[in-house]
């Protein structure tokens, strides 16, 4: 089983749209499981025209709770907390959004009035599309520990993949370079990087390549909207060459892509003859060359 993660650093460069199209193309030849680890703002299910078949609440976040029957109001916890998560009002109040669940406050409370307990911080959704299953994570509003939720999503995805004897898990990653991205990369076989020709996208690409580099896995690059700025496009090629990274393909700006998204379909399904679809077909082939899959 091969795990391929699609990341970009910068958000909005086309990760989910590309994942949807690659997923449906790879599924023509292989058993594929799709996974969405952008738990803050999961969009892959919208790009696929799916229906929800199952979900599971996840408590992958720890929070401190104060028992006010025992609390003396001494505010030792307020001074202990390194995350400014406890606010001194009339009594100390824990702001769950900032609480890391480290339990330092519970250890220092003279009245032993504080306990750390797991709380629900999101859910895992299982969707079905024509011939494909999709496992996604969804962070609860105001929930934290998105990295740990990603760990749970990937664990479930691996189970599902095992059950369905999937050969490829194709993972839509989160934007950024922080803990959810690191969690998405853990255990992956290959990182497919998506970028677009702009100074900002290249800047963020460089940062995420640095992170992915720690994992010593194969990496390949796709340039989306490749024709919007030639100078930046050339800089991306220079960056790829310097880092010995293959450019698996380029997708020109194509209105068919947002049109397909508006219809809830991958562009390769909605407009198979569109210029973007033809390029994505080539990218799917290049991806299988880069990540050989046993059948």
């Amino acid at each position, binding site marked *: 089983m091969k795990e391929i993660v699609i990341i970009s*650093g*910068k*958000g*909005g*460069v086309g990760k*989910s749209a590309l994942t949807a199209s690659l997923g449906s193309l790879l599924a023509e030849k292989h058993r594929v499981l799709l996974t969405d680890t*952008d738990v*803050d*703002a999961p*969009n892959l299910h*919208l790009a696929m025209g799916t229906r929800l078949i199952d979900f599971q609440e996840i408590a992958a976040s720890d*929070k401190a709770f104060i028992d006010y029957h025992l609390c003396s109001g001494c505010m030792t916890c307020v001074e*202990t907390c*390194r995350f*400014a998560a406890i*606010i001194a*009002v009339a009594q100390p*109040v824990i702001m*769950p*959004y*900032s609480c*890391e669940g*480290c*339990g*330092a406050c519970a*250890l*220092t409370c003279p009245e032993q009035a504080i306990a*750390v307990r797991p*709380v*629900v*911080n999101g859910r895992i959704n299982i969707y079905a599309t024509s011939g494909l299953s999709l496992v996604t994570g969804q*962070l*609860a*509003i*105001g*929930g*934290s520990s*998105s990295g740990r939720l990603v760990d749970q999503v990937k664990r479930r995805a691996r189970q599902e993949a095992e059950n369905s004897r999937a050969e490829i898990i194709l993972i839509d990653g989160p*934007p*950024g*370079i*922080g*803990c*959810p*991205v690191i969690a998405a990369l853990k255990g992956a076989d290959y990182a497919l990087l998506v970028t677009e020709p*702009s*100074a*900002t996208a290249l*800047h*963020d690409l460089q*940062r995420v390549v*640095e*992170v992915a580099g720690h994992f010593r896995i194969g990496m390949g690059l796709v340039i989306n909207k490749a024709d*919007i700025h030639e100078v*930046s496009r050339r800089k991306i090629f220079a960056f790829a060459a310097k880092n010995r990274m293959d450019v698996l393909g380029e997708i020109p700006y194509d*209105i068919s892509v*947002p*049109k397909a*998204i*508006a219809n809830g379909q991958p562009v390769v399904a909605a407009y198979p003859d569109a210029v973007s679809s033809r390029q994505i077909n080539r990218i799917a082939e290049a991806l299988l060359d880069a990540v050989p899959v046993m059948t």
Partner: protein
Amino acid sequence: MTGDLQSEVIRAFHRKDFTTPVVGITGGKGGVGKTTVAVNIACALADRGVRTALVDADVDGPNGAILLSVELANPAAVDITVPQIDAERCNGCGDCVRACRLHALFQPRGKYPQLIGECNGCEACIQVCEAHAISRGRKQVGMTYLSRIDGLSLYTGALIPGFEESSVVVQAVRERAFADAEQFDLILVDTSPGAHCNVINALRGADSVLAVTEPTPFGLHDLELILNLLELLELGGSVVLNRADLPGDRKKIKTVARQHSREMIWEIGMDDLLARSYAAGVPVVREYPQAPSSKVFQQLAENIAATYGI
């Protein structure tokens, strides 16, 4: 989980010791134009003589400086505490190992504990060590910068690639700007995409928030998520609909905005001059003040100035 929080607590969460208004710019979905909106409003305000600070709190991918073509300057390190264990003093009791909920400490049999995993700097180990054998070591996880350009002060936070402590860096850059608040008439805070701790920490202390989105199903879905979060944090404000003529459903965007008491929607249509200035790293309000998008940014700036009596 959090629905029963009292407004009093939320007010305490947002409490600050200065009067300069703070406006957040966020959006849920990535790549919808948050930083473009932030940079252009900041420039439009600065050009009106408003002393403006722009905080780039997207510490995973800070791009404000690129869009302003300004060098990062005045660096300051962002550190967290990591335990430094003094073998001479350690009595081998193992209390620190049990206190660490991240399981970052490991004690080989007959030896003193060692830091082997990710430490988030909570100091629980230091709190429980009766032998006072643990001191505060420092680990650098990020940087903050302060750059000045044409009447604008840009505070940038940058996580060092490979570290996980984004929200620590968010807090550091916000606090650096807030410490200088008296020098400014207005502070704008540009957040990362998403709706997790990075965004929440960036919006702490905001007086209102602009939620930027696009009319695609992705933009609609993520707008709803971010507006739910803003309601939880009791933050009002309006919606900016960028790339308003992309395929999608503008009516649904308006319906969602209204359901969340966001009556005002600012629309920015496709604008070649905006795209051109983006690529060149010059804010469109400065390069092409007559461009259609510039007009919207100028109106937004005027609206913010009027709202806060600047």
